[in-house]
C-alpha cells in the first residue's frame, strides 16, 4: 500500500522541479516539501549557527524549519508552496543572504 493507492489517486503527469540543480518529479497538488519527501530528500537548509541540516518539521507553516531558496528568493516555507513546473529550489545556507555579504 502507498498513500496514493489508499485514496485511489489519479494525479495528472508529474511536473519537474530542480533541487540543487537536479531534476525531481513533483506531482501536481503537492507542496515543494512533499515533492522532496517523496523523492527521499529530508533536508534543504543548514542552520545559521551550527550549519546543521534541517527540513520540514511541523508541515503546516508554523515552525519555519523548512525554509529554502525558491526561484532565487530565500526564506520560503516549502511546506506551504505548491510545486510548480520549473521551480528551482536551492539548499539555503544560514540566513540565505550570502549574496549580500561584503
Amino acid at each position: 500500500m502507498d498513500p496514493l493507492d489508499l485514496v485511489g489517486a489519479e494525479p495528472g503527469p508529474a511536473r519537474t522541479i530542480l533541487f540543487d540543480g537536479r531534476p525531481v518529479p513533483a506531482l501536481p497538488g503537492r507542496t515543494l516539501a512533499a515533492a522532496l519527501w517523496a523523492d527521499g530528500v529530508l533536508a534543504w537548509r543548514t542552520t545559521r549557527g551550527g550549519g546543521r541540516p534541517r527540513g520540514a518539521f511541523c508541515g503546516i507553516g508554523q515552525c519555519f524549519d523548512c525554509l529554502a531558496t525558491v526561484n532565487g528568493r530565500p526564506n520560503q516555507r516549502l511546506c506551504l508552496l505548491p510545486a510548480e513546473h520549473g521551480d528551482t529550489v536551492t539548499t539555503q545556507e544560514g540566513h540565505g543572504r550570502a549574496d549580500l555579504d561584503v
Partner: protein
Amino acid sequence: MPTSTSEPGDGSGAVYDLAVVGAGPAGLAAADAAAGFGLRVALVDAGSRLGGQYYRHPGPELGAARPGKLHHGWAVFARLCERLAASPLVDHLAGHHVWAVEAGVPGEQGRPWRLHATRGPGAADRAAVPARAVLLATGAHERHLPFPGWTLPGVVTAGGAQAMLKSSLVLPGRRVVVSGSGPLLLAAASSLVSAGAKVPAIVEATSYLGYARGLPVLAGNPAKLAEGASHGARLLRHGVRLRRGSAVVEAHGTDRVTAVTVARLDARWKPVPGSGRRIACDALAIGHGLVPQIELAAELGAETVTGPDGAVALKVDAEQRTSVPGLWAAGETCGVGGADLALAEGVLAAHAVAGRPAPARETAVRRRRRAFAALMAAAHVPGPDWTGWVTDDTDVCRCEEVPAGEIRAAVEELGAGDARTVKLLTRAGMGWCQGRMCGPAVARLSGGGAGRPDSRPLSCPVPLAQLAEPRD
C-alpha cells in the same frame, strides 16, 4: 459560497455580520449555522482549502477518488462543504492569514471590527476584513518536549506527518516511530500504517492509568471510545506495538535520523537507567498533545483559563462569548477537545451571535466532550522529570539554536526565574516561530509554569512593506 477574488474591505463598504477566523470544524459549523440565520459571513482562513488541520485533504490535482480514507467523520465535512458552497451568504477568504484583530464597537455601525490579514502562501499581499462580530476558531498547535537529536531531518511532528499525508499523500519515511503523549499519536500512527508505512513502535509516555479514574466520563462518551478502538484495532492488525510509560530519549543519525533510543519512564517521567533500547527507523513523528492558539484574542486582553495540563485557553461563557464584547470563540481555541466538540461549539456560537437560544443537542455534546477533554488532558500531563533526558547540548529553541545548557546557565547563574527573562538572556523563543515550538519546554526549564502567553501585536510574520502601507 463565493470565493472572494476582489479585495474585501477595498472601500466597497460591505461590512460582514460575522467574520469567522479558521475554517476547521468549529469555523465551518459556525459559518454554516450563521448563514442559516441569514447572517453575511466572511470565513477567513490561512489555508488554501476548507477543513483546517482536522479535515485537511488532497488538492483536486491529485485526483483522490476516496479522500475520506484518511479521515474520521468525512461525511460530516462533505455535507458542510456542500451547504456552504450553496450559500450565497458565506464568502470563503482562502489563503488569508489573520495577523491582528482590531476591536470594533458592538452595535455601532460606524465602528466595525477589522481583521488584518496577509494573502497568499508567500504573504505577498494583504487584506482588511470589516465585520460587526468576530468568532475565533483558530484551533491549536502541537506541544513538543525536546530530546537529543530532535532537530535531525526526519524527525517531524505527529500532526505534521499527518498533515503532509492528508494533503500531499506522502510519507516522511518507510519506517516511522511515533512518540510522545496523547491520543493524536494513535490517530497519526493509524494513518501512517494505513498509508503503507511500517510503525515499529508507538512510544507513549503516560501509563494510561489516568483514564481509569474517569470511568463515568468514558462511559458518557461512547463515540470517543469507538474512535480509539478503531485506531487500536487497525494498529493491532498491523502488529504495531504500543509501549506505554516510555519515551524516545535520543534520536541518532548525522544527516538524518536512522534510529532512536527508547527508555522506560518512572512515574515522574524520569528515564529508568539501563532501560534504553535502540529501534531502527528512517523517520520519527513526535508530539505531546495540543495547545490552543489564542494569540489574536490574548492581544485584545481576553480572559483565559488554564487547563489540567497547564495549557492556556480562551475563557468563554455558555454561549461561547469571550470576555471581550463582540468577540466569540469556539473549538480548540477554548481548550483542546476534538472535532465533535468543535462542531458543537461552532453551532452554539452562531446561535448566540444571531441572538437565538442555545440548541439542546449541542449543549449536551459540549458538556460530555468537555468532561472527556479534561480527563484526557489530566491523563497526559507531562511528568515533572522529563527534563532529565535533555542534555546540556540539546537545542531547545530550534530557530535560534539555543541549547539547554544556556537556558540552565541563565537560570542557575544569572537568576532568571521565568521564560520571559530566559528569552531576553538567551534568545530562546525569539526566532521565526515565536516560541510556538519551544515555549512549553523553555517555560519548564526556566522553572516557571506556562503562565499567560506573551501577547504579541502580530500573530504571524508580516512583510514590513505591508505594515508600512497606509491603513485601509
